[in-house]
């Protein structure tokens, strides 16, 4: 008899287990719908707390990492700091919560973080099924391919029969398969858990090419033994627009984050920088006056102080400054602005008008 009870219990245990396992995957969609925030909730929570909870990456060179003194720094980190400056008037009032790729969406859904600035690609399913809302794109990335300069490869077609290294658990592997299927090139993949291992294998010649986001490829030049011996193919395998994300449903908070990002871009358009912003305070240009909150209370409409853009720009800098600080020519990445230039310079960044 007791044997049967035991079996029954194990079966029940197994069921619970599978339910749990299923739960982790489905939780995103289900909970995303039920736990949507109501408008205004997040902003008042942040101001009451006096601190912005920002979900970030702590292991992505240039975008989010920890410097030698233990401070969070990077491109994404500065975007989060700009939001804190706009909302709370203090760019340092941020609680950075390092998130792994797996837990990042749950952290937004449960309200553990107010904003997710963690090199997250804006996709349809994340915007809908996962229950996120995306602020304007802060960085246009795309998947690229690195090959040896003397391998005679100049396009994806030349990779016929070669071994391509990718990281596991990323969309890059799927993108690669999609692209290669589309152009009918057969190849072999070798997957790696860890980028360091992938680069080591590439350098040792056990893979002929490797693929990841272009920003990642460029940053890897710093670790290659012979940086001049490698090239990144012109072709882009996928679009990877990286944008800050907030929980679906709180429109006011969504507006706050969006217009903070726009303010950073608008400031670069106007040539307003961290250093010269005070010279603009007596500007006659009505556009500038509205952006900086001297004329019309645009900040008030967002539920913020009228000087929210001034705070963000003066404490963190405009978009171009943030870019140059972490990815620009003075850094070892020296990543060309490309798509990330302002629209006037042939890029894609374009602020909606402040009026």
């Amino acid at each position, binding site marked *: 008899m*007791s044997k049967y*009870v*035991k079996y029954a*219990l*194990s079966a*029940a*245990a*197994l069921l*619970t*287990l599978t339910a*749990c*396992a299923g*739960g*982790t995957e489905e*939780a995103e969609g289900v*909970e995303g719908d039920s*736990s949507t925030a109501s408008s205004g909730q997040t902003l008042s929570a942040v101001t009451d707390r006096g601190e912005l909870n920002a979900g970030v990456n*702590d*292991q*992505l*060179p*240039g975008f989010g*990492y*920890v*410097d*030698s003194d*233990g401070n969070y720094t990077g491109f994404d980190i500065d975007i989060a700091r700009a939001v804190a400056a706009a909302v709370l008037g203090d760019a340092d009032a941020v*609680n950075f*919560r*390092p*998130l*792994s790729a*797996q*837990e990042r969406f*749950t952290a937004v*859904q*449960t*309200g*553990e973080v107010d904003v997710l600035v963690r090199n997250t690609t804006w996709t349809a399913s994340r915007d809908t099924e996962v229950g996120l809302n995306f602020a304007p794109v802060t960085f246009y990335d795309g998947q690229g391919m690195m090959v040896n300069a003397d391998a005679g490869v100049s396009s994806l077609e030349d990779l016929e029969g070669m071994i391509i290294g990718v990281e596991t658990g990323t969309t890059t592997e799927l993108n690669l398969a999609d692209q290669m299927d589309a152009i009918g090139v057969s190849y072999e993949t070798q997957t790696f858990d860890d980028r*360091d291992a992938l*680069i080591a294998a590439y350098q040792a010649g056990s893979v002929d090419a490797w693929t990841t986001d272009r920003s990642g490829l460029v*940053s*890897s030049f*710093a*670790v290659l033994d012979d940086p001049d011996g490698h090239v990144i193919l012109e072709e882009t395998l996928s679009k990877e627009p990286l944008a800050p994300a907030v929980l679906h449903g709180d429109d006011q908070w969504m507006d706050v984050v969006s217009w903070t990002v726009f303010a950073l871009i608008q400031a670069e358009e106007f040539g307003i920088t961290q250093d010269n912003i005070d010279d603009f305070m007596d500007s006659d240009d009505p556009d500038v006056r509205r952006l900086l909150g001297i004329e019309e209370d645009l900040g008030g409409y967002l539920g913020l102080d009228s000087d929210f853009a001034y705070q963000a720009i003066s404490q963190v800098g405009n978009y171009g400054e943030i870019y140059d600080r972490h990815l620009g020519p003075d*850094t*070892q*990445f020296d990543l060309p602005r490309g798509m990330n230039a302002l629209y006037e310079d042939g890029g894609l960044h374009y602020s909606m008008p402040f009026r």
Partner: protein
Amino acid sequence: MIDERLHIKGEMDSRLEVTDAPRLKQDGQTPFFKALKKNLFDGPKNTLLTLLTALFSGLVLYQVVQFAVTNSWDVVYIHLRLLMIGQYPLEELWRLWFALYYASLMIGGTWGLFKGAGKAVALTFGSVFLAFAIIPWTTLNTTLNLVACLLLMAGGYLLGSRFSVLKIPALVLWALYFPLTLGLIMGFGGLLDPVLSRYWGGWLLTVILASVAIIGCFPLGILLALGRRSELPVVRYFCIAYIELVRGTPLIMVLFIGQLLIPLFLGGQTGMDNVTRAMIAYVFFAAAYLAEDVRGGLQSIPGGQYEAAQALGLNKIKTTFFIILPQALKAVIPAMVGLFITILKDTSLVAIIGLSDFLGTARRISNNPEYLGRYLELYVFVAVFYFIFCYLMAYVSRYLERSLSKGSR
């Protein structure tokens, strides 16, 4: 002792070879060389093997030394603070030093009072302190604090070896150590400035997580083991279900459940930070494994022990806690310490839930653009550090096992 034996062997050899012509030459050789010849170069096959092994070991050694010498290791020493304590605020550093002082004094005292394995623990900690104190790139402040730790340890030893009446106070102080230092590190729930768990990192986080898991799983695991042998079906089946469910689940999943499902079920407003959630996950996970280890011990106790206790008029509770458990636990020390070592190393899995333990901090540092690609030195440092402490645990366990089983031999 070994030398003596070799010596005798050597003499016997020379006696055997008394008639050989090259005796004069042999006389000039020390017993050590003779033993060497006999054990390593005895016949062509052995000589070849010896040479090959020597060649291989030499090659490996050369590579290791070359690695150690040619690398500048600056990536390790610049980030020593991050690796050890993460982002713990500098102005509150005294709390950690106090914890280390306390530990040093107690380790020294324990060595003096109880001898035995305390010596190995004290010497290991002492060497690590000394190593960190004498490497040139630690700040003066750190060096002074480490020297103070060493002095406290020596003082503890002297006190302990002189006054054996301190045994009971020492045990009480040990029992208080963990709650006291953890309270201090956190700020005693508001008495001092609270240092939130988000600032814990590196080796500090690893040690805190592992200690909480080990200390927390102990009572829970014993209760589960006893429950599994209970005569009450509800208790028994609950314990079996719990143990089997947890043991049938990967640790990563338990961590994910703790990290993702708890806040989803409780609406995210639990006020429980992610370190606490990880601690809970580890305690519950480790308890199931400990329960099985302890059950093994319980089953090894012969029925005569129960009967004898009954004959002496002890009730069930007294029998369990004074007769059965002490023997059962003693029997499974190796298995338990094996589990504890596993827990210490498994704490590095918290990297997947965004925490930065010792290994996670090394990964973080290797992603600092200034030190891109310098992961090898960091990982070697992390491995050596883990090895020292895991080996120490294993050594102490072996010692305890030997000294506790003296009666039964």
